[in-house]
């Protein structure tokens, strides 16, 4: 008993309070989105989404209790085991899984469905934390980079094979812990530059981009030391950028699936075909935009309630908050997320073990990616990538996976002083 109380005291309650607030907002929003005044069903009614979600929230208490009770050391010692089990599940689901909405990523388990890819996030986080926690591990050689990269790319590839590109993209989030552990920012800069060039190519004509690149290359050559090496390097990078630009069309037309092409096109100009691929973006912006400063009031969000916004309870749940609670509500929700992530960074930094810190930053990265992409797509800053908003969106697997992800870190944090015992 004494130990129980002490663990409760050691947990970071500010994070737990934000967690509970987000869960509550999510649950209320799910109820409102499917609210039908005529049916008179209560929020606990198991025939509607909010009732089902309530059961899942209750089940999270068990999950949390288990995580807090068991020995914190097993997360590090069994990190590879967890990773391996989930990898196996990812392969099994490809063979035995059920296809839902074009993605073969679900296990049908009678009364509920399980999506292993959601759990791959925390197992991968544990695995790279374990791998990089080795003393004197450095990310400055390609051998280590490739090894860490493999931990990330293997589950990512399996999830892409399932047809769930959105969830696979989340693994990009591991850039955050890698960056903290000394990844050369050049990689990130190159990655972001590629993305920017990719997007620019969609907006700006190739001719202008070409002229701009040639000018920049010439300027760099002119102002730099005119050694052959530098000139060659500059010209080579210019050529690389060129090839990216010309690859964009090819990628869009041949590599991306039609629905993915449409999502990118919708990002550029949703109004071009409002009944077609721009439909989601226009309607989610309309729902949010119609909320005004204070929103239409709880349960009054007719636009989301009348099914104008697709995937309203899952990927587009933020529309309900924006419509019913307005900008003030959005401010509260965004602030909660930002505070959560800032706090998690601070917690990660106070860890004594590298394992805990890397894991902590992985948690931050994953939350950040979900937060930025999910809300970004509802307001037209990102293509529609079907990933949930942590703790808010409807769905069991994602709620459990995020809860596990977060509470493992809180458990590790609670024991941060004991880490030397090892």
């Amino acid at each position: 008993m004494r130990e129980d109380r002490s663990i409760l005291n050691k947990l970071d309650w500010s994070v737990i309070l934000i967690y509970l607030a987000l869960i509550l907002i999510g649950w209320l929003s799910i109820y409102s989105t499917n609210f039908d005044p005529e049916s008179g069903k209560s929020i606990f009614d198991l025939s509607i989404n909010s009732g089902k979600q309530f059961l899942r929230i209750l089940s999270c208490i068990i999950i949390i209790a288990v995580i807090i009770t068991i020995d914190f050391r097993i997360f590090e010692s069994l990190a590879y085991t967890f990773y391996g089990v989930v990898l196996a599940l990812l392969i099994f689901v490809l063979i035995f899984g059920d296809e839902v909405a074009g993605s073969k990523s679900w296990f049908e388990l009678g009364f509920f469905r399980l999506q292993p890819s959601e759990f791959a996030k925390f197992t991968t986080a544990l695995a790279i934390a374990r791998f990089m926690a080795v003393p004197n591990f450095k990310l400055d050689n390609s051998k280590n980079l490739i090894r860490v990269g493999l931990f990330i790319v293997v589950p990512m590839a399996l999830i892409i094979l399932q047809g769930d590109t959105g969830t696979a993209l989340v693994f990009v989030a591991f850039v955050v812990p890698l960056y903290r552990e000394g990844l050369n920012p050049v990689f990130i800069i190159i990655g972001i530059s590629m993305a920017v060039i990719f997007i620019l190519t969609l907006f700006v004509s190739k001719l202008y981009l070409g002229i701009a690149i040639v000018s920049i290359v010439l300027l760099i050559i002119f102002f730099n030391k005119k050694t052959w090496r530098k000139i060659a390097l500059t010209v080579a990078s210019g050529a690389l950028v060129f090839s990216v630009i010309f690859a964009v069309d090819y990628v869009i037309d041949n590599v991306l699936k039609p629905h993915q092409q449409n999502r990118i096109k919708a990002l550029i100009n949703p109004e071009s075909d409002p009944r077609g691929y721009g439909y989601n973006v226009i309607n989610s912006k309309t729902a949010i935009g119609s909320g005004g400063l204070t929103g239409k009031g709880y349960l009054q969000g007719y636009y989301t309630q009348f099914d104008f916004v697709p995937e309203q309870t899952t990927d587009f749940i933020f529309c309900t908050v924006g419509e019913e609670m307005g900008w003030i509500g959005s401010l509260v929700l965004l602030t909660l997320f930002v505070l959560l992530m800032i706090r998690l960074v601070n917690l990660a930094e106070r860890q004594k073990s590298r394992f805990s810190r890397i894991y902590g930053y992985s948690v931050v990265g994953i939350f950040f990616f979900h937060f930025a992409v999910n809300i970004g797509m509802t307001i037209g800053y990102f293509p529609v990538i079907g990933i949930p908003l942590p703790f808010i969106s409807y769905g069991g697997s994602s709620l459990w996976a995020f809860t596990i992800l977060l509470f493992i870190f809180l458990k590790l944090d609670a024991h941060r002083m004991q880490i030397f015992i090892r």
Partner: protein
Amino acid sequence: MNESRRYIIQIVIILIGVVYLVKLFAIQITDNSYKVKAEDNVMRPVIEYPYRGLIYDRSEKNLLVYNRPVFDLMVVPREAVIADTVEFCRLLGITTDEFDKEVVRMEKDKGYKSFLPQAFIKMISLEQLARFQDKLVQYPGFFIQSRTLRGYEHSSIANALGYIGEISSTALNNDSTNYYRQGDYIGISGIEKYYEKELRGQQGVQFKMVNARGVVKGPFKNGNYDTLSVPGENLVATIDLDLQAYGEKLMAGKAGGVVAIEPKTGEILSIISSPSYDPNMLSGKGFGRNFMDLTQDSLKPLFNRAIMSVYPPGSTFKPLQALIALQEGVIGAREQIYCSGALVGDHAPPGYYDVHEAIQKSSNNYFYIVFRRVINRNLSENTFIDSRLGLEKWNEYLYKFGLGKPLGIDIPNEKGGMIPTPALYNRIYGENRWKWSTINSISIGQGELLISPLQMANYAAIIANRGYYYTPHIIKEIDTTGLPLEKYRIKHESGIDSVHFTTVVDAMEDVVNKGTGLRARIDGIAVCAKTGTSENPHGEDHSVFIAFAPKEDPQIAISVYVQNAGQGARAAASVAGLMIEKYLTGEIKRHWIEEYALRGEFIY
């Protein structure tokens, strides 16, 4: 060494949060269009069409116009499921080709939206309805919508009633009140057009909220913006349907116009334009085809001759000439004037005439002399100027008799005819280059004088009233007020003393008893009348007749024009006499006249 990177990570997190909040501020607060758009997308106005007002005849027992229900087969294309097209077509009695054609037509419609209800087949027959209604459940997305069309239980008075039809794009653009929408029905001619505002009522609008699939979820903003429809006002027409139908029967096979007025009130008892058409032709399914047929008919059945055709009045004009001359004092009531017959050809023999006999025998020479006296008053030594001054004075009388400009009947497109003015003659002959002898044919109602049957009937009513008239009108009661329009309650004076009417009326009585109007004579009823023959340079003369009866306390004043039917004493007098008999006694005793009129052989 990498500790500082925590701050970069935290800054990026905060930065994204701030950027998103700024963007949210822009779409939620700065930009109002999303709010408008959300309301637009969920709000669906549902128009509640009011019942169009009915029109009764003057007895208030007969309906001139009523509403008859028709049924349209509607479809919400997005929800439509037809399992068996062949069976579906069989139920509707159409071929699969026609089915395909309807689908193509519907999808080409301007307002076509797959989630909105569209008319698939308009006005299905009762038989189709009965067959289809039972099977409706098998065809999701289809439903029957009822609406009303105008219906008529008689085949009379088509031109005066007019018709309704879908509003034209021009009318829609001109609608400054923004009341009408594409596809709304509006009165296009006749009473339907003139009393459109009263008849149409007021559309109601219910603002519904619909979900993304167009399913109604409830009232918008608790129905605070909803309005109820107000049914149109019923109208009571001045028309006597029996008289109207009888008159149309008499006029069948002839071209022309008849207008009968109750003199005391200006109420139009009967307004006939011949040839006419069955008003049911321009209501409902055959509208398009029938309308084409009617517009292409060389006899112009859509042309309302009673108010739109104008003719020289011929000798029917003589009583008016007499009244003006008497009022001006240029002749005395018993003054004998010698007519040699030298001025103009004449049916009346040469000799002495007073005004009574001149009217009774329709002496042309007498009225030439009288008109010269009216025109030339020696107000100026210059006969040209003198003629001009005389004609101006004469014009004033004519205007007071409602000639030369539209009377203002409550039917659109009334023509005003023409009275010759100094300005007209100046144009024709040049200023100061015309005098009485130039223009003397108007003495006897020929020449440049053009008068519509309506104006003629009103002129007869003025004589019947001995000097006043109410503007002829066809609607005597509007539901809310129980009164005709304000302008039909104003008494107009003719400016001629009633004593002079006595002289003229006596003469007109003898026209019927001893003169040219014998065919209008009815035993026991004192009919006063004047025949006329309107000279027609293009063919046979037009037969013209005006009359009123009984002489004391007149109940009916009538004008009849029958085109190309020769002397007024024949066709026009017969029709007028029969209608007076019908109206005053309710039956026809003079069957030989009726047979004569119906046979329609007036040129012999």
